[in-house]
């Protein structure tokens, strides 16, 4: 290519890069604005909440909105409950998922394909359908209003098992054979060969599971009876009630302290997590 040609490519490249950034800035703005709106509303006085066109930044920061929202329910306790149930749920579900994913990917069994369809079928059943029967089962186990009751019904794994199985299938046969020659059983192969290789996938899975457990709303609502067992979404949803409505500024403030810890964790961990996936994928 000549000098002129290279220059033309360069300027075209520049335009492309500009357009790319423009599109991404727009997307980020669309995603980010609701969060900003949440924040500024949470800092407003009632008078400034109800103004149109809206005030972008409140003239006087009403930090007491947070105090009011915090006092309206035992949010500290909700935090503890959410953290305990979400993390233990993730750990258990990953264990369950890894075991069955490995079995479906690597262990020969006559009814394996049929069982895999059964497994996939389970993914299709909406949890809401199981609400009443599950409650009855838990009652018999004596698990109502316990962490177990919140967690255990939702640690069976289909999505995770499916995802990990896909990954285990991509691990070269030679690695498994080598493990076998080294005299490793299935259990050791899973723990020392397959899982370490799948670390990025397990990371994504843990992240995903954590999100869904942290956010789950209907089941914890049903299965807990006392304030000291409730999780954050349940506590937050209970703040908004027609007859005794607290203002949007308080709802937004409460939403923020439900969100902030997870968002902080996310922004610290996201780089490792997301890039871990990429790195692992290239290696695999």
């Amino acid at each position, binding site marked *: 290519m000549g000098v002129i040609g290279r220059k033309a490519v360069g300027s075209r490249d520049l335009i492309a890069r500009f357009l790319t950034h423009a599109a991404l800035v727009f997307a980020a703005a669309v995603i980010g604005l609701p969060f900003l709106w949440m924040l500024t509303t949470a800092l407003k006085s009632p008078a400034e909440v109800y103004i149109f066109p809206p005030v972008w930044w409140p003239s006087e920061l009403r930090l007491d909105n947070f105090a009011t929202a915090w006092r309206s329910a035992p949010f500290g306790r909700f935090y503890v409950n959410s953290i305990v149930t979400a993390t233990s749920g993730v750990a258990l579900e990953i264990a369950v998922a890894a075991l069955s994913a490995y079995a479906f990917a690597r262990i020969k069994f006559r009814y394996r394909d049929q069982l895999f369809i059964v497994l996939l079928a389970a993914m299709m059943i909406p949890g809401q359908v199981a609400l009443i029967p599950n409650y009855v089962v838990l009652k018999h186990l004596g698990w109502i209003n316990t962490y177990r009751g919140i967690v*255990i019904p939702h640690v069976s794994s289909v999505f995770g098992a499916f995802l990990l199985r896909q990954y285990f299938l991509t691990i070269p046969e030679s690695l498994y054979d080598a493990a076998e020659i080294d005299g490793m059983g299935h259990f050791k192969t899973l723990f020392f060969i397959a899982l370490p290789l799948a670390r990025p996938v397990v990371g994504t899975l843990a992240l995903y599971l954590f999100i869904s457990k942290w956010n789950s709303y209907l089941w914890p609502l049903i299965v807990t*009876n006392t304030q000291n067992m409730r999780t954050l979404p349940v506590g937050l949803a209970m703040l908004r009630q027609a*007859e005794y409505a607290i203002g949007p500024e308080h709802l937004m403030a409460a939403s923020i302290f439900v969100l902030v810890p997870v968002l902080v964790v996310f922004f610290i961990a996201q780089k490792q997590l997301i890039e871990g996936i990429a790195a692992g994928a290239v290696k695999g």
Partner: protein
Amino acid sequence: MKAMRYLLLIALILALPVGLWAAGSREAQASGPVKIVYWRSLTGVAGEAQDELVKRFNASQDRVIVEAQFQGAYAELNQKLLAGLAAGAVPDVVLLDSPFVALFAKDGVLAPLDAFVRSDRSGFKLADFIPGLLQDGYHENKLYALPFMRSTPLLYYNREMFREAGLPDRAPRTWDEFRDFSRRLTVVSGGETTRFGAAFTTSTTTAHWYFQAAVYAYGGLVSDEKFNVKLTEAPALAAATLWQDMVFKDKTAFGSLDPHTEFLNRRVGMVFGSTGSMGNLFSRATFPVAAGFMPGQVKNLVPVGGAVLAVTSTDKNRQAAAWEFIKYMTNADSQAYLVPRTGYMPNSQSSINHPEVVAYFSQYPERKVAIDQLVHTRPQASVISLGKGTELLRQLVEKLLVGNVAPARALAEAKADLEKEYNETYK
């Protein structure tokens, strides 16, 4: 065997959480005071007041200990009660939205209270309760609930807007006047309505309630005690037509899920609310608010709402403890604590005469409407006690105010649905 090792591992995995969370929330029932559980609803001042009363009850005696457990809004509490009943795990006392007494009593969920009333030696007088408020605690001539936080629908208006519009400082007396006031409060600028005269609620909890009030005012009924649905009769048609005309012909009102917020934002001049909303609306508004009767037309009559206390335990010992508790919660001293803080109506003659209640109403004469309206109440329509009753009436209101369905048709559909619902429930 290999398989054994795997099973061991699995047992370990399953045992982990059990060990981790062994400290469950189950409690041993020892001798000594009877521990009972009370499921309450409502947040804000109404919630705090219940907790305070429970605390006072526990301090007042040493035979019964009550644990109050907040269960969310009325609908959520009902939902949890159902799930609990299905699983055989119920509390001892529940706060129930009054129309649901019949629904739960019908299936034997609530303990009848008549025997306790008869054998009570503490000077408890059933006759002290306001008859209109006690009435819906009955189902088939048995008493199942005592009135606790009772309310009636009221009309709230923005006094500032009334003054600006040249309206008198009082609530409209008839629905026709309500329509006229609404027209005069409406402001249109640049082709856009910037202020409406009124907003009707379409929300699940109360939409049916205000519509019932309108039908009562026109001299009709939504349904009688025998579940005959009266929606296709003239009074219901008149009320429905007026509501719809205000929205679609006059364009001075609209249906909203959250009319109180619209009201507090000065977007509307008049809204309906419960006596129980008084504390909230008066304290949050940045303009002077007044409360008045619901508009009349032919009659001044409103359906009474709010919550009652019922006993759900099956064990005799716990039922007796529960009885002690609900007696305390509904007595005049407790009402004297509750009424001034929440705006709810006093439930008995002795609570109306209680010095603290008297003092409260003389300090806030504008809130006295809560007792003035007491004599103009009757229970809600029988169909409300059907599982889907409130929802079918809410759908009716939504069809009228959002869907613009012709009133005669919407009412006929609602009647048919309610009758079907009755047949499914009772036949």
